[in-house]
Every structure is written in structure tokens, then in C-alpha cells.
């Protein structure tokens, strides 16, 4: 119970911080990833008995540990994969934006 209260307070502070960050900077992929982790932690803190019960029902011996490990590993790999491919696309966008900016600057200089 004490753990739940303490965990809840910590998560509440992190959630407020993250939400204000999203409001200010927008939601990008990494922030979205943090948000998903945060939501999962909320579920674990708020309803541990309920989640344990369901996982045991579907046949896990040590349900919680195993599931967390699988989810964590797969989401990390998936995130990195998506992040790397997004960065590649990002690079092409940056190149276009940069060339556009240089062209605009040259045009401005000529007009002067």
C-alpha cells in the first residue's frame, strides 16, 4: 500500500512534467514512447492484483516478470528500429529544408 502511494506520487509528478512538455514541444516519437511506458507503469501501480490475476489465468508461471521482460525487449527493439528509419527520413527532409533556406537567402541578397 505504501509502495503504491509513493509510486503514485512519483508517477503523478512525472506525468505532469511529461504532459506540460508535450503541450510545449509537441508529441514526437520518443516522447510518445515515454508516454506509453508511463501509462504501463500507472496500470502496474494502480491495479497490481488485477493484472497479476489475469496473467496467471492465461497460464504464466511467473506472469508479471516474464511479460514485462518480453514487452520491454520487443518494444525497445521496435522503437530503435522505427527511430533509425525515421532518422533516415529526417535527414532527407533536413537536406531539402536546408537547400530551400540557402536558395531563399541568395534570392534575398540578389533583391537587395
Amino acid at each position, binding site marked *: 500500500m505504501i509502495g503504491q502511494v509513493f509510486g503514485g506520487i512519483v508517477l503523478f509528478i512525472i506525468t505532469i*512534467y*511529461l504532459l506540460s*512538455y508535450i503541450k510545449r*514541444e509537441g508529441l514526437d516519437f*520518443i*516522447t510518445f514512447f*515515454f508516454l506509453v511506458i508511463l501509462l504501463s507503469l500507472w496500470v502496474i501501480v494502480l491495479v497490481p492484483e488485477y493484472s497479476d490475476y489475469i496473467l496467471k489465468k492465461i497460464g504464466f508461471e511467473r506472469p508479471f516478470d516474464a511479460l514485462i521482460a518480453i514487452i520491454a525487449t520487443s518494444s525497445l527493439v521496435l522503437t*530503435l528500429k522505427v*527511430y*533509425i528509419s525515421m*532518422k533516415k527520413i*529526417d*535527414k532527407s*527532409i*533536413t537536406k531539402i*529544408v*536546408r537547400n*530551400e*533556406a*540557402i536558395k*531563399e*537567402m541568395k534570392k*534575398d541578397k540578389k533583391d537587395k
Partner: protein
Amino acid sequence: MIPAYNTEKTIGNIIKRTKKYVDRVIVVDDGSSDNTYQEAKKAGVDYILRHSINRGLGAATKTGMIVALKNDAEIVITLDSDLQHDPENILRFIECLKEKNIDIVIGSRFLGDNKKMPVIKKIGNSGLNFLGRLLFGIKSTDTQSGFRAFNRKALEEINFELDGYAISTEILKEAKEYNLKVEEIPIDAIYPEELSGTTVISGFKILIDMLLRKVGR
């Protein structure tokens, strides 16, 4: 060269103060949604470039460096647009570059007076310094400082890859690979109200970018 993002309140001030110490000022407005571009023009900047969308500090720095190189710059000083750096120090940077024949000079807030630096930033910066040393063997007291001076050799050698804040570490990694001479000089840590700077989450993004850079992305 000043990369700027949503700093309409401070950009004019920093341009006017910087102009006293350099031949030309380049500003790269990195997709600001406020009047940064207009304020920079009003302040009499020599070259102003505008990214149509926000691409990050690294991308803006690279754009500025390309323009500087094309315009035959012999020395390029980078500084932040949010009044975090005092342009009066520029002469010390140039002196260090020329007299000691250094390729890159870094203004280190950890060698100067950093009493005003918030504790969270001290911890974050120290962590990123440690990570830079661990991953790339960079021995710097302030890998995240944006107040730097480069000679032409350094500008031509360094390959700027990253778009975000991690470019600060990437430059030092490249400098080490190309055996460029790097020296640090003390600067004071100034934290004005208008400071945009890095957040805890941008710290995590730097960490991820550095790790990906390490594994050879």
C-alpha cells in the same frame, strides 16, 4: 553564427552585441513560430537563413557552417541566441585559436563561474560529459557548450551528421578522429529568464543519438 529557435526577445540584442567583435553575423532561424526572423533582420544581421520547419540545433548549425564556408570564413564562432553567452568573450576565443594554433576552442561553463547553473543541468551535463568520455574517449569538461570557435581547417574536416543537440558531442568525436587540436577556455554560466535551452527529455534524446552514433548509424 547563431542558430536560433523562438528567441524573438533576445535575438536582436545578441546580434547587435556580437557585431562589435566579428566581421559578419550569420543567423539560422530554425523554423521559429514567433518573430525571430523579422527581429534578426531588424537588428542588421549580415546573413539570415530560415528553415521552413524546425530541424534541430545540429541541422541549423550545419546550415550556418555551409554558408560560412561558402563565404570564405577563416574563423567561425557559434553562440546561443538566448543570451546564455556573452559576446565579449569572442576576442578571447579568437586569441586562443590564433596564438596557440588551436583548431577548436570550447567555452567551458565548468571551468568558469557556474554557480548560477541549476543543479539538474549540472547533473545532466556531467552525465553527458561522462558518456562522451565512455563512448568516444572525449576528454572535455563541457561537451554540451554551444559557445565555440572553429578555424577553417576544422570546418572542412568535420562531418556534421546529427540534427539534434547531440551535435555538440559529435563535433568533439570528429575532432578526436581527425586529430584536431581542441582547447577549453572558461566562460561563465549565464541563465537568463528567456532561456530556451535543453530539458531533461532533450538530455535523453542526446543520449539515444550518442548511442546510435556509437553503433555506427
